[in-house]
Structure formats: structure tokens, C-alpha cells
């Protein structure tokens, strides 16, 4: 049985609401459990922390890490920062966008039409001496090439 957004949020509130500055830990816990922060839990969090909905919504939308929409089944991040650019990450990003059927207009990510992949730019993974670097479903990969990228993506298998 999958936990509901309301029950996940209730558990996160119960665990953190008494801490000073509890909003970020609560949002992390909700997103870690659900993959995103559904709009319907915003009023619940606001009430639990005695904040306005606008304040909670403002925080969710301010931080790049938090997502209001469910991502694709596989989340791929490609580093676009300078050290990775120096080792060809622009070309790698273009390759990834083509391979996954995603676009990266305006510096933001997107999800492929079939909902299989979400591709996001990321600004530094701290692997700057092993550039370029990517993250595929929370696993780091460094010294990436288009050929290695394809191998990793193909190994994800046909899940749907």
C-alpha cells in the first residue's frame, strides 16, 4: 500500500514541526517520499507550521531542488557549470537531450513525452576534477562521454 500525500506530510510534520526553521526538512521529507511536493499538501504544511499558504508555496518554488510536478521515472542531471563546460558538457547535454527526448530551453529541465525521463541541468556536483559529471537516479557518474552515457541509459532497462 502506497502512503498518501496527506499521511506522508502528517508524518513529516509530526517529526519536525517543533524544530526551529522546520520548513525545509519537512519539504525534503515529503519530496523524498513522493518524488515531488504535490500542491494539495501546501495548505496542510502551512497549517501545521502556522504559516500562510503563500509562504510555503514561495519556498517550494524558490528552490531549484523542490518540484511541484512529478518527475519522469528516471531523473537525469547533467552538470553545466564551468569545470564541466571545459570538458565538453555542452555537447554532452545536447546528446542527452536528444537521446532522452527532452529539451533544456531556458536553463530549466523537462520531461520526455512518454514520462520516462526527466532531464535537468545541475550547477556543480563537486566532481570538477573528473568532469564532465552526471547523476542518473541519484547515482553519480564522472568522466562521462556520450558513449558511456548511452550505456548507462540503456542499462536502465524497459520498465514500462
Amino acid at each position: 500500500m502506497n502512503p498518501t500525500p496527506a499521511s506522508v506530510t502528517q508524518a513529516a510534520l509530526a517529526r519536525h514541526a517543533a524544530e526551529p526553521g522546520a520548513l525545509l526538512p519537512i519539504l525534503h521529507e515529503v519530496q523524498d517520499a513522493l518524488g515531488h511536493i504535490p500542491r494539495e499538501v501546501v495548505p496542510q504544511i502551512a497549517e501545521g507550521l502556522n504559516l500562510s499558504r503563500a509562504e510555503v508555496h514561495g519556498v517550494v518554488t524558490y528552490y531549484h531542488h523542490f518540484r511541484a510536478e512529478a518527475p519522469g521515472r528516471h531523473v537525469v542531471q547533467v552538470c553545466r557549470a564551468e569545470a564541466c563546460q571545459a570538458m565538453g558538457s555542452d555537447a554532452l547535454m545536447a546528446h542527452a537531450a536528444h537521446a532522452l527526448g527532452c529539451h533544456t530551453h531556458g536553463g530549466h529541465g523537462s520531461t520526455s513525452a512518454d514520462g520516462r525521463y526527466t532531464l535537468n541541468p545541475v550547477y556543480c556536483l563537486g566532481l570538477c576534477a573528473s568532469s564532465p559529471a552526471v547523476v542518473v537516479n541519484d547515482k553519480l557518474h564522472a568522466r562521462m562521454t556520450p558513449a558511456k552515457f548511452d550505456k548507462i541509459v540503456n542499462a536502465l532497462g524497459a520498465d514500462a
Partner: protein
Amino acid sequence: MNAVTVYVPRDSAALAVGADEVAAALQAECARRGLALNLVRNGSRGLFWLETLVEVATPQGRIAYGPVEADDVPALLDAGLLSGAAHALCHGVTEQIPYLAKQERLTFARMGITDPLSIADYEANEGFAGLRAALALAPAAIVHQVLDSGLRGRGGAAFPTGIKWKTVAAAQAAEKYVVCNADEGDSGTFSDRMTMEGDPFMLIEGMTIAALAVGATRGYVYIRSEYPDAIATMNEAVARATAADYLGDDVLGSGRAFHLIIRKAAGAYVCGEETAMLESLEGKRGIVRAKPPLPAIEGLFGQPTVINNVISFASVPLILARGAAFYRDYGVGRSRGTLPMQLAGNIKHGGLVEKAFGVTLRELMFDFGGGSASGRPIKTAQVGGPLGTYLPESQWDLPIDYEAYAAVGAVVGHGGIVVHDDSADLSKLARYAMAFCAIESCGKCTPCRIGSTRGVEVIDKIMAPPSPKTNKPQQVQLLRDLCDTMVHGSLCAMGGMTPYPVLSALNHFPQDFGLATPDREAA
């Protein structure tokens, strides 16, 4: 036969090139062959081109093999890996590898040598000696040691750490805080990440000493969400330090309390700015605060707060353990001690190089780095992160020293060095700097919020194909005026320093902007 100790790093730069797979292959292959193995997951030595760097303990010392892939393991064992035998991937005794032997590792002395989560390893390598020394001192004497060491903030601003601590110590409040800024968002930097993953007790010890010095009882470490391994390691290290009474209600029986909380950031670059970080810790949008009041007077939750970077705190235990003079004796001018520098980008031998201040960029890029990874000539290096300048070859012989860099308008910052070869287009990198600022600006002040977007547009006009309607010198002047407004009118370094990479690109590489001569003369 005794089990042979083999080290396979757990640093995320090693994991990202297959260290877990190497460790698994070693265990499986040794088990199959009936060889007794004592596998230790150490931190990284910081020689990232050799990762996964496998080390074997032998009577001659630790012998290094790298870069090892899981597929190499059977052949390495055939060749006699467990006795440190010769092989194409063997580099001899680790400590004698020139890249390491030429360094002055003070802060990173334990890095890659110990199991990061072993308190016994930490204690056996001078760990907690600084805290024990601090517990025997009055708070003012601790502050004095840090002042005397000449330590300046390693996060980038280079403000004297001791003066900050003195201010917080003098402030009267029921609750004070110690906050570590581990939002290491600069491209080309990873020394904070290595510290948290590879020697976490050093950071905990440094923060605890700070708490004793200023009278704080609670601390926070604000770690970027892009560093999940660092967050996990720090959480575990705090739990172990608490269980061993290095943290908690009664630190080592002193009657002094210090509780440390790990907080995960959420991917906003500007939260590396200290007041935006405080807002974020308080559960709000990471919007920069106007200063004054200084955080040392009114910081987290309105209380006096010490805020330092990971490397600043990590430098403190040694200063207390060996004395301020020991640390101060390294370095040049007003830049005392050592800086863990990070060689990154298009560099053959990228990694962590800790040296006393005074080393030059040329020494780092060629003597340590071995030139570019691509084999092409190096064109420039950006020093000090995305807000640092691009240094042309004429500046590569300057000593790395806060004042010497400031004299040419450059910054040492957090010690990140991103190398670019001659295929780099500096107009694109300048445009990127403005675009990055537009994405990451908190939006509070106009020069940063609007200026960055206008900056992208002006650079696009400069780079557009020539037409009778474009007046290139005018657009260049416009870009300079815009940069001037951003430098002098922004609330924090985000907008205030974004012009540094832009103007250095324009001044030193005018040809990349289609300007035949340095545009100062042309305009």
C-alpha cells in the same frame, strides 16, 4: 596468513568512477581465491585522475594502484596486488607520488589515510587534540589563538576568523549559534565536500572549538543537496561523536554543551551567501539580508552567530593542537597558513593540492596539473569560482595570496581553479556568467536581478553578426557601464562579482568578442 589491508576510497569522486564496483570485485575475487582481505573504505587522497586509487598496506608502506576498474581486479591479484607487486597501474609508495610529496598538507593531513567514520583512526592521527587543548583554555584564549594564527575565512571573503569570533564572544545573548556554510556551490571546488566525506570529525572538532570560544550551545551545518554522500557521512559522524561524548550536553565531561544539527539545502546557489543561508535555515526563501546588522550580532533566529566555511573550521583544530605560530609560519604577507586548492576543469592531473600561500598558478597548472587534459595549450584559468576572474598567461606567475590577487582585480576565493584550453570562447563564458546570475539571483536588489538579464542581452548584441544597425563599441561601453552598476549597486557578491568574470574576459581576451585590439584603446 594474516589478512592484508586494502584501501578503496568512499569519496564520491571515486564512487562516480566505480569504486564500489572495485571494492565488490576485490571482495568476490579474494573470497574465490581464499585470500584474506581487510577492506577499508578510506577518504580520497585527492589524486582524482588516479581514482579509483586502490592502496595496499605493505611493510614498505602503502602502495598505490590506479586508476583501477572492476575488470582490472583479477589481473591485479594475479600480479601480486596483495604484496604490493609491480603492475602497469602501480605507482609505488603513495606518499612518494610527487603530486602528494610536494604538497604541504596541514588541514588535509589525514585525508585518504583514515577511515572517515572511525573515531579511533581520527584520535590516532592527532584527532581531538585541538579540542582537548581548547577545553583547557579560557574562551578568550581560544579566540586569541585563532587571531594569532592569521586564519582568514576560506569561503572566499577572507575576513579574519578570530575577529568574527571575538565579536560573537563579546555579544550578550541567552543563545548563540555556530553555523557552518557547507553550501559549496562554486564550480571547480570540492575541498568542503572532501572534508565532510573524508574527515568529518575535523569539521565537528573545529565547530565545537568555535562554540567553546564564543559560548554557543547549538550549531548547524548547512550542506548543499547536491552532496548526498557528504550529508550521509556527516549525519553518521555527528551520531558517533555524540555517542562518544565529543558532542552533546557535556562535551568530554567539561560541563559545556554543544549540539550539532545537519541541514540539507535545496539547490539555490545564492544560499552560499551567509545571510541568504540564515534565511534558508530559518525555513524561508533564501533571500539576502541587508547588512548591518552583522550576523555576528544578529544572525540565526536573530541571535549572535559565528558563520564560517568548512575549511575555516577545519583549519582550527590544528591551530589549537600545535599553536598559532605553527600555522602562521606558513604563507606569505597577510595570507597565512595553507590553502587546499582544487585543480579542475580541463587539466590532466586534477585534484586537491594543499600548499602554503605564495604558490603560483603556473606551478599548480603545470608542475602539479601536468597541463591540459586535452593536450591543447591552456588558454586561461578561472580562479575563485563562477564569480572569479579569468586569468591570462601574464598573471600566471603571481603568488596566490589574497592581496596580490586583489591588486590585479582577481580573487583567490575558495581556491577553486578551473582550467580551459585554447578551444574555450571567453565571450560564451562571459555570457554564461550573466546567465547563471540571472538564474540564481535571489531577486532582492535590482542591479543583480535585472542587470544579469540585460547583461546576457548586451553580450548577445556584441556577438551578433555585424550589420549597419549595430554599433559594437557602444554596446561594449554599455556592458562596462552595466558591470559598474552591478559591482557598486548590488546587495551581495552574487550581483556584485558577476562582472568579475565578464570584465576579465573582455579585458584579457577581446579577440573572443570580435574586438581586434583591447577595446579600451578602441573605444
